[in-house]
């Protein structure tokens, strides 16, 4: 099986990326406002479907997909922007599983597999499911069919699941499968249990190592970007609240004890943004996995710390269902455990660092 390397978009200049970010942010601020997300969380609005159609019509779902497969070819930098902005607005929808599956197909799929699936993903015709923890979930492979039950990130109407089966990865269509929603505290994302019995895979990706690594890397980067956007957003929302909330005859934002915490949160948010940016910049380098996995561990941990403090800084209303902090905190906590546990990710990163160092290379090169 020969996998053709694909030319990704040449590194996009900063102005293009900034314009892209502003475009996505503008649409999401309007479409996935706090009010809209609360209505969705309360089951009063199908915001996930509305957003998905906007995303499809605006080409967002093709950001990471090369033009020859119907995408926009913005590469990993475009994808990171999209995920960060979705996180910023706590937007509901199966973006992480669908777009990460697409990346794995781009990196490890044959030409015919790419042709079969990527254009439909880019067009928004289908969404995908992937194991919530891909390294530890696998289907049984009989040689002709696959069976098993796996917990996945993905919408209940996902068209297919990408999962490991024996020594390969398979794409299994879910039309006949038993799919059960597993409601999470984070209501902005769908987790499903998929039960497959003797299904014939629609496609097989034979290079298991490459597929697994590509999916892990794509999910890690997507989740990290989502958490970085969420962290910045809940920090900004909390500071705005502190400016409006008055106690002791003044806005509480004037109290130094609280200002210093806000400064720490903003500083942490700035640092984790750079961790995501670094992982993006290294995505074509031999140490890509190190930085993507490490970013996921560090950024999602930091986002939980930030969102936790934002609940506290809101005081009583932070503990209510009607305000935003709990939505971000729950999203942060789900992100923390997706992909792989953060300690395990750090161990993988450390093993990669050791092998790079033993080979006499540096993992810390950084252009000026």
């Amino acid at each position: 099986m020969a996998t053709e390397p694909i030319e990704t978009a040449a590194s996009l200049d900063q102005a293009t990326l900034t314009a892209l970010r502003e475009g996505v942010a503008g649409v999401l601020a309007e479409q996935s406002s706090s009010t809209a997300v609360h209505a969705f969380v309360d089951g009063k609005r199908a915001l996930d479907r509305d957003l998905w159609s906007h995303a499809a019509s605006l080409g967002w779902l093709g950001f990471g997909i090369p033009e020859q497969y119907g995408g926009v070819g913005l590469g990993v930098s475009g994808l990171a922007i999209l995920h960060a902005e979705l996180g910023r607005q706590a937007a509901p929808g199966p973006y992480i599983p669908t777009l990460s599956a697409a990346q794995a197909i781009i990196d490890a799929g044959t030409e015919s597999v790419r042709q079969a699936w990527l254009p439909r993903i880019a067009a928004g015709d289908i969404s995908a499911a992937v194991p919530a923890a891909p390294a530890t979930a696998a289907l049984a492979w009989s040689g002709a069919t696959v069976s098993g039950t796996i917990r996945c990130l993905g919408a209940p109407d996902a068209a297919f699941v990408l999962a490991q089966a024996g020594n390969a990865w398979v794409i299994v269509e879910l039309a006949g499968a038993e799919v059960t929603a597993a409601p999470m505290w984070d209501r902005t994302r769908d987790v499903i249990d998929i039960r497959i019995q003797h299904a014939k895979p629609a496609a097989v990706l034979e290079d298991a190592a490459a597929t697994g690594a590509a999916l892990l890397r794509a999910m890690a980067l997507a989740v990290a970007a989502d958490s970085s956007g969420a962290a910045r957003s809940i920090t900004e929302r909390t500071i705005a609240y502190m400016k409006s909330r008055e106690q002791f005859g003044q806005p509480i934002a004037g109290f130094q004890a609280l200002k210093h915490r806000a400064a720490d949160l903003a500083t942490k948010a700035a640092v984790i943004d750079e961790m995501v940016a670094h992982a993006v910049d290294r995505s074509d380098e031999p140490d890509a996995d190190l930085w993507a996995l490490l970013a996921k561990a560090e950024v999602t941990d930091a986002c939980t710390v930030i969102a936790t403090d934002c609940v506290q800084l809101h005081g009583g209303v932070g503990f209510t269902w009607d305000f935003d902090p709990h939505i971000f905190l729950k999203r942060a906590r789900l992100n923390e455990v997706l992909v792989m546990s953060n300690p395990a990710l750090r161990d993988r990163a450390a093993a990669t660092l050791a092998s790079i160092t033993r080979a006499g290379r540096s993992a810390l090169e950084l252009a000026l």
Partner: protein
Amino acid sequence: MTILDTQHDLPAFRHAIRDWLADVVPPDWKARMARASNDEFIAFQRWWMAERSKVGLAIPHWPKEYGGAGLTLQHLIVIADEMARADAPQARLFTISLIHLPGTLFPHGTEAQKRRYLAGVANGDVWCQGFSEPNSGSDLASLRTRAVRDGDHYVINGQKIWSSNSMYADHCILLTRTDPDAPKHRGITYFIMDMRSPGVEVRPIRQANGRSEFGEIFLTDVRIPAENMIGRENNGWRVAQATLASERGVIAFEGAERQRYEVEAFYQRALAEDAPWLQDDQLRREFIGFLAEIQAGRRLLRQVLRESEAPDAAASVLPSIVKLSGTALRQRICSFMVRVAGIDGQAFAMLAEQPFGSPMFDFMSAFSGTIAGGTNEIMRNIIAERGLGMPRI
């Protein structure tokens, strides 16, 4: 061909710097400095400045009409990058001379002051800064050292503190109070003071890390000629803003690059020795996390450098964010080194010959980052008030 001849070709300039450093930096300089007396430290610093001067790199960033090479920020970044890579000595003794003095005199000094004082820097004049006072630290504008006009002189009485290398300084950039009745920012005047003037007494301050880099300056009826005033009388606070803004992040950038090499060397040694902490899940995971923070910090510093020449650079709080996060990270890295070193890390040593070779020295020294140059608490105020728009009450 000299180094400066290559300045229009940045990669060639980088190679020329690299070759020069390979040639000039004594391989044993760290070991020597680890055991050096104060006099030996001063002599070594003067030697280093003289070597830089020989190749035109003493004051490379100054305009040519004042003896500099007129190099750009990009060149300074390359120099700092190569200095870090080569683990070359830092010109610590000359920080105020090289950065703060020109940063003040270029915008606010008279032509006579520039001619007279800038020329001395390349020849090794040491300058110190007389800003902080025992009762005016974070609240610098409350300073009380008095300057009273007496004919064509001012008479100075008061006390300055935390003045780096003041024990060895030839001159001091000094903030004084000339109008005690005006609002605190409007009664301050800025002077150049000859440190050999009668009435100037300097006492070194012994720091918690055992070294004495700071001095306390006692000023008793010190007479300063009125021509040594920088800017107008009572306009010193504005001039001081130029001093404080003069460091464009190159020093912090070089520090972060040096730390990258130090941490890498520490890790290589740990791998080679199969250090026990590598098998400790918690410590290993903590260490790998530092790498993400180190890279993030280096990226932020590159952003600071890029922003530093923008017209609105002074309004950015990014330098404060970088200082807050970078110095706290340094402290956590040093704390980690102390923990993994066990009892050996507690052995008294004042300077390391190898990266983190004296973990307690590095750990105790890390407070200079979190406290000096505006405490991290002041950084938090700046970030919150100027950056996040939180009200000042």
